[in-house]
């Protein structure tokens, strides 16, 4: 890749911004211009608002946009996953219908994958999809659906064939969330937050044209979505926007959009144990002088630094295209759990009886208490520790798999009532 080309691109972006950027437009107005300009998603194909740019080229574009403080297209929340999945696996009709309003932010999305009866075992899902008179009728319950309560559309996996093995009877749909057959309820966590929803579908209707991929190919489509999710490292975690402090209309509306999208994630740092608070609190309380607590703090630092350094090594190897198996993802996930649990333990030792308190009046304005009751989520959400250990032992260490008990027609597999 010639640097010349990159420089040309950079100049082109600047030129285009000089000509079109107008902070007084509404968010939607501006984004329509951006999308038509082909600079919203330059890595997308030319037919769909893009320029078929390479990663490297697209990087240049977003760098300039960031630098100029220009508002980008909507990319918060699960909408990003919907867009990439539709682009990759949808048909032309679906791309035309859905991609633009996702980019402009006019339509928001949620992800309808997990079910109460199928958590770790996602492919064991039992939401029913029946094709009746040209439309799909959906019955079942989903759970852990971020921002479902204000979503217009959902990407949905449901079982359309019960006689095939579990992975083969699944289909992938785009469902209209604004219909009587869809009910959304918020789920309250033990820490008081409510980041997720339950979604109940009772004879909910999916248009015949809104099946993505062929009937029964839903699992491979869903895997595409999940691989994007892994690559994005969990969606919607606070996307910048911070650069836009100006009071222009477009910035104000963008700020609002980001704020709404980030709301569910405010407690995530506490879920990780807030290691950053440990040393300051230990010094402030004098606990830093306690030899027993010192040992536990040092253990914590060892885990955290060790995990960070190991992740860097893995990342470097990945970049250098080493084909040595680096289990970065699963090990990092497992590491987060042990680190968070140890951090919670150390915070407890530092607080002593004060750990019984919570709320604004308690340590670090309640953040320590929130750590204690949030940490249990880290070893479950986004793949339990047990699943990570299976992945590490089977895919990285190549240890033999267990005999499966979930083969054959899905209807014959033992599952939760």
């Amino acid at each position, binding site marked *: 890749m010639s640097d010349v080309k990159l420089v040309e691109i950079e100049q082109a972006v600047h030129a285009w911004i000089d000509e079109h950027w107008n902070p007084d437009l509404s968010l939607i107005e501006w984004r329509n211009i951006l999308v038509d300009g082909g600079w919203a998603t330059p890595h997308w194909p030319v037919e769909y608002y893009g320029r078929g740019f390479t990663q490297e080229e697209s990087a240049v574009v977003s760098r300039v946009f960031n630098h100029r403080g220009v508002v980008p297209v909507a990319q918060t929340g699960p909408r990003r996953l919907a867009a990439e999945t539709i682009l990759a696996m949808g048909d032309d009709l679906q791309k035309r219908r859905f991609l633009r309003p996702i980019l402009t932010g006019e339509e928001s999305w949620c992800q309808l994958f997990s079910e109460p009866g199928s958590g770790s075992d996602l492919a064991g899902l039992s939401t029913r999809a029946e094709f009746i008179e040209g439309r799909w009728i959906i019955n079942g319950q989903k759970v852990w659906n971020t921002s479902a309560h204000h979503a217009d559309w959902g990407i949905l996996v449901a079982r359309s064939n019960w006689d095939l093995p579990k992975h083969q009877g699944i289909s992938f749909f785009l469902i209209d969330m604004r219909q009587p057959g869809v009910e959304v309820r918020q789920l309250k966590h033990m820490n008081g937050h409510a980041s997720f929803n339950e979604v109940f579908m009772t004879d909910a209707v999916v248009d015949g044209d809104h099946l993505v991929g062929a009937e029964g190919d839903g699992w491979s489509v869903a895997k595409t979505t999940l691989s994007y999710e892994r690559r994005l490292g969990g969606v919607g975690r606070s996307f910048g926007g911070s650069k836009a402090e100006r009071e222009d209309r477009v910035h104000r509306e963008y700020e609002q959009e980001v704020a709404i999208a980030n709301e569910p994630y405010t407690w995530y740092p506490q879920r990780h144990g807030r290691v950053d608070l440990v040393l300051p609190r230990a010094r402030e309380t004098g606990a830093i002088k306690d030899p027993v607590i010192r040992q536990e703090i040092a253990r914590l630092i060892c885990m955290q630094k060790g995990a960070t350094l190991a992740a860097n090594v893995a990342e470097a190897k990945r970049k250098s295209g080493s084909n040595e198996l680096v289990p970065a993802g699963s090990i990092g996930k497992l590491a987060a759990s042990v680190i968070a649990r140890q951090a919670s333990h150390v915070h*407890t030792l530092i607080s002593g009886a004060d*750990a019984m*308190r919570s709320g604004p009046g308690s340590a670090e304005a309640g953040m320590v*208490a929130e750590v204690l009751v949030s940490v249990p989520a880290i070893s479950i959400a986004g793949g339990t520790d047990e699943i990570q250990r299976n992945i590490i032992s089977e895919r990285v260490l190549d240890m033999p798999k267990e005999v499966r008990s979930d083969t054959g027609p899905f209807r014959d*597999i033992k599952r939760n009532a």
Partner: protein
Amino acid sequence: GVHFPEEFGGFGYGPVELGIVSEEMGRYLYCGPFFASSVMAGYALLLAGSDSAKQSLLTGIASGSVIATLVLDDLNSPSSVGQRLMANACSLSGRAPLVLDAHNAEQLLVIAGEPEGILGLYQVPSSTAGIAIEAIEAMDPTRKLTSVTFDQVPATRVGELDMGLLQQLWDYICMALAHEMIGGAQQLFESTIEYTKLRYQFGRPIGSFQGLKHRCADLLMELEFAKAATHHAGFCLAAEAGDTDAEPYAASMAKALAGDVYLKAAQEAIQMRGGLGFTWEEDTHLWFKRAKSSEVFMGTPAIHRERMMMVLEEEGAA
């Protein structure tokens, strides 16, 4: 008042029987003021109270007609009690930042430092002018916390404690607390095992996965240790002085073991239930919070292990 003498309206039983009752309360996540009133205030009176104070209070506490609580200005370790709450010529001043159930206690029993460097046990109605009782937001909704502030409050001195007696009082309270904790841990453990038998993933009950089974086996072992040590603590406190089988560190051993295993049982209870265990759809989180607050209430396991060593470091000790 299981553990009060019959003359004071109790059943005349001892620590062992109180333990049985506390264990049952733990099994049902009991949230009433029994622990604050009957156990904490009750034992303070039994160990350090004057006969007249016992006469006037214990009967009411036993029948439940009087709710009392024990005001300690530190809930971590006996050695730091009596530094924030001071008594001068029967007038109390200072603040106890964490007190159980004071908001609905009619009588306060207060342990306060005195100029002579000794600790006094005082009785004062909670309604007395100069007493400010504030509700404290609690991490564990099953334990009601308050702070109590005294501004030159006249109180009746009903007894005194040297460090030895305070340590003993601490042991009695921890013994009862440990029983409550193992009751909870046992209940939580059983319900978790049941869940793993009923919950299917990958076409089999998750309880059939060796990864879980081995952890449950380890947990059962630690639970058996904690239960045995806790019951033993009851016997030790009930034992005659000079009984060689009665280790003086038994209560701390029980509190340390119960604290660790209760928390572990609660962590596993949530982990094995998955996401749902983290929500208000189930009550597992209440058990977790109870386990967490029990871990630190009256001293963390680490503090109690250190208390054990104060005894064990001496030549000739076990």
